[in-house]
Structures are given as C-alpha cells and as structure tokens.
C-alpha cells in the first residue's frame, strides 16, 4: 500500500497562490466574503501564509503554502467523537460529511489550521457558482454527499483523482496528481508515494535537507518542505 505524501520546494515557490485558486476550482470550495474574512470564517483547503521576522531593512518573509498535512499520527482523528475523520489505508486523512456533527473539536486539535468549518447559510449553498461539483460524472461517484454547510472540511489530497487514476492504471505522482501540484507554475510541488524509493518525492527528500512543520508534536505529517 502506498503512503501518499507531498514535497513543497520553498526555493522554487513564487508565492503566486495558484495552488489556492486551483484547489478552490477543483474541489468547489466556497469562496469567502469581507465579513467572513474578518471573522476568520473563510474556507480554504490550501492557503499560502506569510511569516515575517526581522526589522527594516533586515526583514524576511517566508511564504508557506499550507495544505492539510495528512499526519500519520493525526490529532484530528484522535479527537473526533463521531469517527467522521479517519485515516485511509494510503495515509490520506479524509472527512466524512455524513458523519460529521460539526463539533469542531478537530479544528481545535489540528496544529496546522488546515481545517475550516463551513458556516455558509443554506441560501448561499451554491456559492455563486453555477457549476457545482462537476466531477462526479468524470471522476466517478464522490464518496460523500454534495458539500453541505454545518460540517468541517479540509484538503483531501484530491483523492478522487488518485482513486480514479489507480482505476485507470495511471502512474500516481506522474500522470495523476492533486490539482495544486498540477497547477503550480513553478513546479514547486511534487506528489507521490513516500515509501517508494523510486518516486520523485523520495528522490527530492534524499537529495536535500527538508523540514516538516511542528515536528515536536510528533504528528509524523506527510507534507515536507524543502527550505531555500
């Protein structure tokens, strides 16, 4: 069984946020509004955050793309009282909207802020997009009902692509990758099997020093960063 992971090269990353928009399109993630941003309620499955240190003129801002880290020891899975969030065999942490009771424990537990609560009102369910989840016809049955409000949602590593790709016998990590990886103009993101010594991600991790965020929590997360 593969163990899917992602490597993000911060030296190649341009901070352009194409990953964020590509994710919104692919997964039909609802967009926010000025009010929601003020209340920090806007929903992102992938977001580029800025961390600034220093004092003028010696200043440094690191722009870090943040998908879900898909931890092998995921705190969100541990705390979920409804077993709505769980680890698949291939290591992807998924959220079952049908089981989720919207208690938000997982949001508190997640050390990476990767989870969002969908507090959209019913009348906003269409999110001003006339083309809601289009993918079921093509990628096969979406495992969950159409996204609904009142639940927690997050990045899925685009598992619908992966599952479909496997069915079609395609090479995951080369021919089929998550939307954010596919649409990264600098090709700063790579996706693949961390346990496969021949995968691009394994090659990258053995070629350079890497970091994972909040290593001290022992989450064993599967998103690796290559520093500059």
């Amino acid at each position: 069984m593969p163990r899917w992971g992602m490597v993000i090269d911060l030296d190649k990353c341009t901070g352009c946020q194409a990953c964020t928009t590509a994710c919104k399109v692919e997964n039909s993630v609802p967009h926010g509004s000025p009010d929601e941003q003020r209340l920090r309620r806007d929903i992102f499955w992938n977001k580029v955050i800025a961390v600034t240190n220093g004092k003028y003129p010696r200043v440094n801002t690191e722009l870090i793309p943040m998908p879900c880290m898909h931890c092998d020891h995921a705190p969100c899975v541990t705390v979920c009282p409804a077993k709505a969030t769980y680890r698949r065999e291939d290591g992807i942490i998924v959220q079952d909207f049908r089981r989720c009771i919207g208690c938000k424990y997982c949001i508190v537990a997640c050390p990476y802020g990767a989870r969002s609560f969908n507090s959209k009102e019913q009348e906003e369910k269409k999110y001003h997009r006339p083309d809601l989840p289009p993918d079921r016809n093509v990628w096969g049955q979406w495992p969950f009902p159409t996204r609904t409000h009142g639940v927690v949602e997050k990045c899925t590593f685009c598992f619908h692509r992966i599952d479909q790709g496997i069915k079609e016998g395609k090479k995951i990590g080369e021919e089929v990758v998550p939307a954010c990886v596919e649409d990264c103009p600098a090709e700063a993101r790579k996706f693949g099997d961390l346990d496969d010594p021949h995968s691009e991600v394994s090659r990258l991790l053995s070629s350079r020093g890497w970091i994972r965020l909040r290593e001290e929590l022992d989450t064993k997360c599967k998103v690796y960063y290559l520093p500059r």
Partner: protein
Amino acid sequence: MNRRTFLKLSTFTGAVMGARQMVGRFSTTSALPLQESIQNSPEKWIATSCLNCSARCAIRVRILNGKAVKITGNPLSFVSEGKVCPRAHVGLQVLYDPGRILSPLKRTNKEKGKGIDPKWLPISWDQALKKVTQRLKSLRESAQPHKLLLFEGLNTVSSEDMILRFANAFGTPNLISGNGLDTETEKSGNWMADGHYTETAYDLDHTNYILAFGADVLESSKPLARFLRKWGKLRREKPNRTRVVVINPRYSVTAAKSDEWVPIHPGTDGALALAIANVIISENLYDTDFVNRWTTGFDSYKKLVLSQHSPKLVSKITGIPPETIQRIAREYAQTKPALALRGRESINWPDGSHISYAIFCLNALVGSIDVPGGIIYQENPKYRDMPHQNGDDIARRGKNYPRIDFRGTEKFPVAEVVTNQIPESLLEDVPYPIEMAIGFNSNFNMFAPGTERWDKALQKLPFYVHVSPFISEMALYADLVLPSTTYLEEWGYDHSPPGSGFAEVRIKQPVVKPLGDARSVIDIVFEMSKRLEEGPAQSFANLGGHSEGFVKFRTETLMPWKEFLGKGVWLGKDYEYKKYGRLFNTPSKKFEFYSGNLKSLVSKMRKGGEKDFDYLPSYQEAKFLGEKEKYPLLLLPYQPLMVVENGSQNYPWAQEIFLPMHGVGWDTPVEMNSETAKSMKLRDGNVVWVESPFQKIKARLKCSEGVHPGVVAIPFGQGHYSYGKWQKGIGVNPNEIIGVDYDAISGQVAFFNTRVKVYKA
C-alpha cells in the same frame, strides 16, 4: 526532442499523442490530453487563451455539460510551458460574473457623474447599432471623422487589429490604448540604446544572476506565467542556482523570494545603475570584446560614470552603502550571464526613459545582449496580411489631423500613446473638440492617475459608447453600453508581449455559447462598418465577414485551421542568438551608450532645443509633486498579482487572497514602516487619511518592516464603485490621489513621485 522536430512530427491526428509527449518534455504531471473522446462524453477540453492580463497565456478549458468548470495551462505552449498564473483560474468567475450585462443598455438619465444613476434601459442590438452608426455617419458626412475618439483597454490582439483598422477606415487618428499607463519607459529606454521600441525579452533559461530594479517579476511583470515557471527552473532545475537581487523601496513578493533585498531611496535607481557601471568600468570587469565591437558612445559614457557616479557619492543619493554597491556590481559582472531587469517602481518616473536607459546599459556592459541567458529580441508572428486599405478621401483627410494625445510632437517626441493626456485635451478642447467616443473594454478613470479629471472629461463627452461585458466605472458615463463577450466566448488570435524571443500564436475560440446577447468586439466592429457603408464597409470586405472567418483568414497561413483549433498554439522557429550584424536599429547600427536615435528625433522635433536633452543614460534628481515640508512621505502604489486587468475585480477567488504578504484580502491597506508610524503616533489598524496635494483617501494602516521609512505603499486594484457585490465599495483606489506627471520622452505616466501626508481619520 527539440521544438522543431516536435512541430514536424505532430500533425492534427497526432495532436493527442503530441500533447502526451510534450507532457513528458516538461515533466508535467497532467494526464489530460486535448479534446480526447469528445463525442460520447459530457466532458471536453477546449484549447484557447487567457485575457486576464496582457500576457494572454495559452489555456485549456474543461467543459462539462455545456459549462466551463476548469481552466489550466496548455502544455503545447512554450512561452509559459503549459503553466498559468492564478488569475487564469479566476477566468471562470469572469465568465460567470453575476454582474455581466446581457443586452445593450441605453442611458435615460441625461445627467452624468460619479454616483448618479444612469437609469439604464435595455434596448435591442438593432436599435443600439442604429444609434451608433447614425452618429458616426453624420461625423463623416460633415468631414469630421477625426472627432471620433476610440479608447482601447485590454483586448485580444485580433480585436486590436480590428479596432485599428476601423480607426483608419473611419478616418480618425485618435485611438488611445492604455499602454501609456503601463511601462512605456521600458520601451523608450530600449529604443534609446538599441532602437527597438518594445518591451524587453529575457532568456531566463540560462541566466545565472538577476539584478531586478523594481521589477516585480513574480507579481506584475509580463508575461507573468513565464516568469513564474522560469523561477522554478532558475532556482532548482539547473546545476547552478541563479542568484536574484531585488532593488526596491518595498519588500515585494519578488523581494521576499529573492536572495537579497536592497531597499533604495525611491526614484534613484538611475544613479545606482550608473554607480554599478562605475565599479564595473573602473575595475575593468566589463565585456571589452562586446563593448569594443558592437557599441558606440562608450567613451562619453565612461567619462560620465567615472567622474560623477562613484559608489561613495551615489551612496548618499540612494541610501545604499558603498560596499554593497561595489559587491553587487562585482557579483553582477563576474557571474555570467547576468541580467539587469527593470520594472514599474524604478522607471515610471518623470525622467523614466533615462533611468530605463541607464539600467538597460548594464546589460550591454557585461555583454548580455542577444546571448544565451541575456537580453533577447522578440520575433513577432506574421499573420496573413489584410488587404491594403486605401481609405476614402474623408478618411485620409481625417487621419492627417494631429492626435489629441500629442504623441510624436514636441511635447512627447518619442511617445506611441499618452493615455493620461486625454482628460486635459477633452476638457480644454485641444487641439480640437471631440464629438463622440467609443471605449472597448477600457476603464481609464480607474486605472489612470488623477481619476477626477477623467470623470469630468467623460462627463463632458457629447456621446460616449462603451463596449464591455460589465458596467465598469467608465461605462457609468456612457450614453450607450454594448455588451461584449468575455474572452471565453469569442474568436480571436493572440500573442504575448515580448518575453520569449521566439514567436507564438494562440487561438481564442468560444468554449461556451455567449451569455445573453453578448457579441464579440470583432463582430461589433464588422457590423458597425457594414452599416457605415462606403469606405469603412469596403475596408472590411474580404476579411472573413465575421469573427471566426476573420481569425481563420489571419491565421490560416500559419497553420491549418483544424490543427490550430485542436492544438490552440502555433510556434515560430527557435531563437537565434548573436545577430549583432542586423540587430540594432540605431544610426550607428550598434548598441549606443550615447543615443543617436534620441538625438536625431529631438533635433527634428525641437529645432534649437537639442541642448535641453541629455543623450547619455544620465541621472537627474527626480521631480516630486508636493512640498516636502507639507507632505513628508512619498506614495508608492503597486500592483499585486491578483489584480485582474480587464477592468473589473468582481471575482471572489482573486479578492480573498489579494495580498498574500499581509494575509489580507478584500481591502486596501496603507502600508507604512513601523518606525515611521510610531514617530507619527499611528498604530497598526488605525483608520488614516492619506492626503496628497490633489485629493485624499481613507484606509486602514498596516505597519510593516518591509517598506522604506519615507514611503507609503498602497496596492492598486480596489476602490471600484460601479457594480458587483464582490468589488463595489471595497478598498480605495490610489489613483485618486496620484498627481499627473509624465516621462517627457515616452509620455509614460509617472506613478511614484506624488508626496503625501498621513494622519488619523
């Protein structure tokens, strides 16, 4: 496999295979072929191109059950190597913008002005076009076709060609594009040195050192997707990582991603460039072979930089320590090939052409001209020529009138367009009054400094027709609005501004049926000229008759039509380096450190005034608007990546991630150095007034470490007031407070020399 063999191999039937091979070539992970199994699937991919900025990248759009659901890059494109910037994805929201207009609208409220409801009344296309052509006809009948003014915002190259032909056929010299608001100084700087009045192309694949003077290559430079893709290549896809040094008063995204940020006193980039030249020449680090063989004027240039621009002296001007200047100069000269880039922050100044010239000369100094990893020269595609346009007598006479933007006159000798001159010309009726105007996707009263003047001028226009998919701010002053299609619903052909060297053409084809009654600009122009009869109608005969026919007519000589539809991209031949013998369009046929082009033009335009000009890449202290005592800070507006350049910003995907460096969307923060703010007793989050000698705007203060202490940085892109839940009333527009000033040579708007004061609201 190189590009040529690929082109030879791939035929239309092999398009899918070709796409796959290209995927391998770029190691793209996308497994989505072009137009595969269209017949029996509700899904299809259509190759077309983007138009959310002027780079016009090749894209593929995924259509599901008749709706566009996904936009991504076209792997057959070499300019962006199958990649797109985030704005391309936003295209879906451009297409399905709930604020789009779906039928022609007539104004019923005679009163015009900001905040006045035009009281639109929907009318039919026939009625609308009748009204337009009636007016146009009467202009021609009274032999005054020059009194028609055409505005041109961001359009496809094909629409631009049509609009230009329409202007010529009708007989007006007054076609005003928005280029004068972009980077004309880059073009004029090039022209002074090598005789090419175009943007600069860079061979980014092979360069090892980049010195970026205010060039926001990861935000607003064109073609952006190419810069983004090449950034990954420069950093980690070649054996030696390219070092990037950014010189900018503002810590931009580009600066954050670079290896070194060197803050500089605003407007002094020219001096720094000359100081770098001083170090390079005095330490004998320049490329003597290139300089001796292919340049002229080097001795006067050498004398200038050695006598007046020592690092010590320039350090006082720029605020950069002399050691830093020396170190950068040595690094730059010794790491070959190296590039010196320019961007808006460094060259959109009153003396911008000279600054641009000075920076550009650094490339020649280290021999980075037409070599791998250096400056390259863009080859443009050769579309099939349109039939020769004779034009009738009325048109010929009309076109001979002087242009109302004073380009190519004593005032702006080299200018190709002086966009921001129009309000003054209209308000003062110089050189003659304008009777009617048509705007194609333009929105200059948002994008040009001194917005109030534009509002007044548009108010004064006797009859204004606006062509656009939505009611932009400029449309609020229209007597008639014609709904045009977005780029995803129309036919066209396009190419990028210079960047790649080799030529590349992309098709635009409708990916969905036009929404409502929208019509493409090309079809609108065809229809107008048909109704005008006589000369204009003749000019547009034999051009295919409609937009699809026109695009086919123009591009069929490049590539068979069906193949073009399938691939979406036509590629020119590989780039050829070191064409020195035929490269330079200067009097000496060499690269000039002393501009013969400028000298000959100025002596023609200003007899006796030749002495007022400096023909060397000299530096002069910038002229500022406002007194330093009253307005102690300098306004530095900038364009973030997520600004969609079509005239609207009603796109939530772009709005919510507007400023990644601050984690802020949906707003216009006023960015100030935290020490400066402290000394003025202002705190982060305070609502403040930013007041220039001309106007003031109110916004929230953002204290930051990434901005020069003497500068107030405000992003462009917000402050729309015309339509749309996702843009109306959000943020402010810095153009409202920027004063009006120009680079005297190119007519480029100076954006950065307005002084301001900031105080608590």
